[in-house]
């Protein structure tokens, strides 16, 4: 178990290093940020001074090592635009995205798994076909359009929910959260629903496919021959067997939602990380871009590590392989 963990952490470290090189090179290739940062009318002396201050005159590999060295000391640089340490900037936006992504995943899971189970349990029923039709809509209709539609119907026409923004937040363990108040919930519900729709469709299909397969297996037949009730057959035998693909997709989707909730955050004017990165790209705020991408890689690696550990809990056969 510990050997497995060390192996996975080393792998994760390699991925982070590889990604940092790619990100650094890619951002470097965009060009000299000085031209964007300063007034084009400023004189050459000021330009030179700034280039020297930021170290743009040094060779690429040297810039990279300075960056990595700083990163290891917890310093990801300072934003060119906000004049703030990048890490603080991103972390100040993280809670907003975190609560949005988690709420969306919660909605998708709590609806998607039961609906998928039903659709797989009674695949020929009308309700199952309706669920499957909905799931196709869920991940084929563009998310920005659904977002606009939600705003139009529920915020503009019906006036049930606000059309955007985050509402009041309270400080919980140093994080600003809006899900602690009812008004906060009214703000988060529409964007979370919008974000959840794609994942909902995906989870329904995944759960259904697994259920259909497991329902026709010998052990389900054997369980029925033992006189187990249908709820026990589904709850005990089916659910645990289909959980591995679901956990995999859940992990990947959680990562991508945290990193790329950009569209929804833009439509609903949600002050999360996605909006920060888009704003940074438009003004070529290099340190923010680099730090953000590295953070995203780190998030993905961590989530996958957790998913791998959960696998072992779900399927004893995987545990055996990992140990040997």
């Amino acid at each position: 178990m510990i050997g497995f963990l060390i192996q996975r952490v080393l792998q994760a470290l390699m991925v982070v290093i590889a990604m940092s090189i790619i990100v650094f090179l890619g951002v470097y290739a965009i060009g000299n940020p000085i031209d964007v940062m300063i007034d084009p009318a400023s004189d050459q002396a000021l330009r030179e001074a700034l280039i020297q201050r930021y170290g743009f005159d040094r060779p690429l590999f040297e810039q990279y090592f300075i960056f990595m060295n700083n990163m290891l000391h917890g310093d990801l640089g300072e934003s060119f635009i906000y004049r703030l340490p990048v890490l603080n900037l991103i972390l100040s936006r993280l809670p907003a995205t975190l609560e949005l992504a988690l709420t969306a995943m919660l909605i998708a899971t709590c609806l998607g798994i039961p609906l998928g189970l039903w659709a797989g349990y009674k695949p020929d029923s009308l309700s199952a076909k309706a669920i499957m039709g909905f799931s196709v809509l869920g991940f084929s209709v563009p998310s920005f359009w659904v977002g606009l539609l939600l705003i139009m119907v529920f915020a503009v026409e019906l006036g049930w929910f606000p059309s955007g923004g985050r509402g009041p937040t309270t400080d919980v363990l140093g994080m600003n959260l809006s899900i602690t108040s009812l008004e906060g919930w009214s703000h988060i519900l529409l964007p979370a629903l919008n974000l959840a729709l794609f994942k909902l469709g995906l989870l329904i299909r995944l759960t259904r496919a697994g259920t259909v397969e497991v329902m026709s297996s010998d052990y389900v037949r054997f369980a029925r021959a033992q006189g187990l009730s249908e709820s026990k057959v589904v709850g005990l035998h089916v659910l645990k067997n289909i959980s591995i693909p679901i956990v995999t997709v859940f992990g990947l989707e959680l990562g991508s939602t945290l990193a790329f909730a950009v569209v929804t955050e833009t439509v609903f004017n949600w002050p999360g990380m996605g909006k920060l990165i888009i704003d940074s790209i438009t003004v070529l705020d290099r340190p923010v871009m680099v730090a953000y991408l590295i953070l995203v890689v780190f998030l993905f690696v961590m989530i996958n590590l957790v998913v791998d550990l959960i696998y072992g809990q779900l399927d004893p056969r995987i545990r055996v392989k990992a140990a040997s």
Partner: protein
Amino acid sequence: MSDTVLRINNLQTQFQTRAGVLKAVDGVSFEVGRGRILGLVGESGSGKSVTGYSILGLIEPPGKIAGGEVLLNGKDITRLKGDAMRQVRGAQIAMVFQDPMMTLNPVLKIGTQMIAAVRAHARVSRKAARAKARDALAKVGIPSPDERLEAYPHQLSGGMRQRVAIAIALLHSPAVIIADEPTTALDVSIQGQILAEVRRLADETGTAFVWVTHDLAVVSSLADDICVMYAGRVVESGPADAVIASPRHPYTAGLLASVPAEHEPGTKLPQVPGSTPSLANLPQGCAFAPRCAKAGPACTTTPPVQHFEDGRTALCHYPIEPISCQPLSLTSTTYRSAS
């Protein structure tokens, strides 16, 4: 037989398909007494497994039981619906499947699966259910049953898993256990152990077994009675010794002749020519006639059930005359009780 626990009367199981109605089981009748073992023999596609599933009401659409009765202690259970049928399954009629690698859920501990099976029919605490599960494992000859309860199926061998499956079937002391080729996937030596165990259990607990198999050698050493199925019908039935010693239906005779064990080494092994007909396209009259050496003009009409001595039957126009010779044995072992 006065102590008949299971009687099948003219059972009809049909599947609605695009090619028409397939009669997988077409008028099958047999009965099993307390503590007796009935061998249900046939090739693949003869309807023997479907008969087993029909008895438990486990036929899934588009299949359905179209007629006949399954009398468990005199009560017809084909009419039971939903929860009433569920209460019969596992408690009064249990089933053991062919492949022990597939019948246990790979991600659940043996104990979890057995406790669920106990609590499906008995309102007992987890602790009591666990004790019952452990006793059942001990009863089928599994060493250190407490440890086995904590094991996952992949940690056990195939024979061990089949013993677990039999233990699960035995949990509620059912009147009948349907065993669908339970030793086919096992080594011959393990098969022998399981067969001996089953014979002992039938004698000790009084549980009746319907042993579905294609293996005549198994049946000859284990079963008290035999039903030979072909294309959804019982073509021959009777006491196992008598049927094997002197088959009356040409199909049974063909099957027996193609068992290697009793065959002269070095000469060509006889076979039943041709292959099992498709249920969608059965020949008129006797379904076996196209493959039968004894077929005559009458065989285009449905053959009558001929009754012989000892309650034997054959579904044939031209049954084979009985031969009077020493009963031959397909294997040197027998698990049958001396009765």
